[in-house]
């Protein structure tokens, strides 16, 4: 969290020029194209973007859970506490998943097995990573449920996922993700399926657990509000590439990429005059099979020039703030808040 200084400035997780491809009927598609970022202990990195921008594929690549046999990591490194996960043997990877890296998925109903009790699923995590003792695993499960704020944890252990509400299920998923005290948690749209008041509870819980355990969190979401309120750093992705990256205040107060600016301008806010026409980003996200040469955003960009046929590289805008646009210097100032 931004107000608590990170215990170490050494990144726990570093993703370096990650390229992930999928073999499809339309040929090999590059879903993630040269994405780099890093997260330190106690900090939250937000990855934002619209459907198909590659944010979930990035998460699956880190976990090495890409759909097989189509998906593969073509190049790049993913370093967790110094070790490259890309080349790690699969048995080692089993220990990492759920052990060093915890996962929280969007839909808590599909992340949990409907035919097993909460207790069985939760103690399985301990049995895989920490202990052989079934009773001890069960007891640890109860402690975890208590930690994530589930009332009557002893009874809940015997219940099935369908007996819990959406918010409670997501708490169980968080308990499973944090069971083995991981150093990194990857949360893919953790609150998208939840109501706003429940979302507030879950975000609060994640922040509190982060403070207690010094977790590094990678939060993948499409909700700019959630990013602004919970993240320290942001990566804005568009069509498989990083459009802009930087500290959350920079991205929201001084967005430099036309895509980031367009997104921030187009969302209705409580302060937007009612029924006024909203600024829009024209057109739609191009299909991965049909990407323009050069800048991926050019077909929708109001500032497009001939130069945009060349692929823009990430240029430094300010400290830790970089933007992949040829024209960011010339763009008119905007007021997005």
């Amino acid at each position, binding site marked *: *969290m931004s107000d608590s200084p990170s215990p170490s400035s050494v990144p726990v997780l570093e993703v370096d020029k990650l390229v992930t491809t999928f073999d499809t009927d339309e040929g090999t598609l590059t879903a993630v194209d040269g994405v780099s970022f890093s997260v330190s202990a106690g900090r939250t990195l937000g990855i934002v973007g*619209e*459907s198909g921008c590659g944010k979930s594929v990035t998460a699956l690549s880190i976990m090495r859970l890409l759909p097989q046999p189509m998906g593969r990591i073509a190049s790049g490194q993913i370093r967790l506490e110094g070790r490259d996960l890309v080349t790690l043997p699969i048995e080692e990877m089993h220990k990492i998943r759920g052990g060093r890296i915890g996962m929280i998925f969007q839909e808590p109903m599909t992340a949990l097995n409907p035919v097993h009790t909460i207790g069985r699923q939760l103690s399985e995590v301990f049995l895989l990573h920490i202990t052989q003792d079934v009773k001890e695993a069960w007891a640890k499960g109860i402690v975890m449920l208590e930690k994530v704020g589930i009332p009557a944890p002893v009874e809940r252990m015997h219940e099935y996922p369908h007996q819990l*509400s*959406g*918010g*409670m299920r997501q708490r169980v998923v968080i308990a499973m993700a944090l069971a083995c005290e991981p150093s990194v948690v990857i949360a893919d749209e953790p609150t998208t399926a939840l*109501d*706003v*008041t*429940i*979302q*507030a*509870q879950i*975000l*609060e819980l994640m*922040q509190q657990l982060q403070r207690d355990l010094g977790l590094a969190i990678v939060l993948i979401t*499409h*909700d*700019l*509000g*959630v*990013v*602004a*309120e*919970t993240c320290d750093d942001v990566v804005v992705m568009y069509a498989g590439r990083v459009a802009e990256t930087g500290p*959350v*205040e920079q991205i*929201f*107060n001084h967005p430099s990429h036309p895509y980031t600016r*367009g*997104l*921030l301008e*187009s*969302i*209705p*806010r*409580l302060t*937007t005059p*009612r*029924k006024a*026409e*909203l*600024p*829009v*980003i024209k057109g*739609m*996200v191009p299909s991965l099979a049909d990407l323009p040469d050069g800048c991926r955003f050019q077909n929708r960009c109001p500032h497009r020039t001939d130069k945009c046929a060349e692929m823009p590289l990430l240029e430094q805008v300010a400290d830790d703030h970089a933007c992949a646009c040829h024209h960011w210097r010339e763009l008119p100032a905007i007021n997005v*808040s």
Partner: protein
Amino acid sequence: MDTPSSSPVSPGEPILELRDLCMHFPVHEGVFNRTAKYCKAVDGVTLTLNAGETLGLVGESGCGKSTLGKCIVRLNQPTSGEIIFEGTDLAPLKRKQLKPLRRHLQMVFQDPVESLNARHTIGETLTEPFIIHGIGDTESRRASVAALLDRVGLPANAVDRYPFEFSGGQRQRIGLARAIALNPRVLICDEPVSALDVSIQSQVLNLFLELQREMGLSYLFIAHNLAVVKHVSDRIAIMYLGRVVELAPADEIYQTPRHPYTRALISAIPQPKPGRKSQRIIMEGDVPSPIDPPSGCPFHPRCPHATDKCRTEVPSLRKAPHAATGHTVSCHYDL
């Protein structure tokens, strides 16, 4: 498009009135499948939609907002209450009697994938309303469909294509084209932009606003995203467990919310403004089940201000103390 039939209701006058509308679904239990309890999805809602305005309906999942929308177009047969559309009560009408009125009252659904028939071309889908209501001949229908596509910003060649060939935003435009095909007066929009990406959402919201200005449509806009609802609405009703707990002009409900639930709901919306919220009101617990709602005020188990009175007495919707007219709230206290 069909020639507009003029509405007998002038702008600003009530076009749709719900009076004490209830939708109680029977819950069956036991070997004999007896009706043991009722799920009170909508429990005594009274609301008015004026011609040309947008009434936003906000609430969390399970609060009954979608059921309410379905009752109005009679996709659900309400248990009791009145649905008065332009002076006619729709609730007791038979299918045949309802048909001529249905063209004035259309619905836009949340999921543009499920609400379009995957086996019909867009042309077939959009022609269907004209066939059902026996309007025009083949030639004029074709012209109407072309005009509709143009109106919602889709290419003319969409006529011969199938839903899967379109993106989510385009499909929602198709859903909207179908809803406005017969020049309706009221659109019930059930979460029409929730499934769309951020950059597409604003395009579709703009289209909703344009169509309202041009066609004088009245919208009942059902959604859970308060920022979106506030943007399109003139007045907003907040629902909780099948009841309306607060109703006020859109700007006022945000500036001076009176019901503790509305306050918590507004404070929970994440704002795209960096800096963590410290004054956020975090409500404990979940929404109770509408099968077994709490006694007294339905919000009392989660309310920070609850007293004994709240546990026993059901508050009625009354004019909010010291507020402008048109601001009603159902809370025993003046918070």
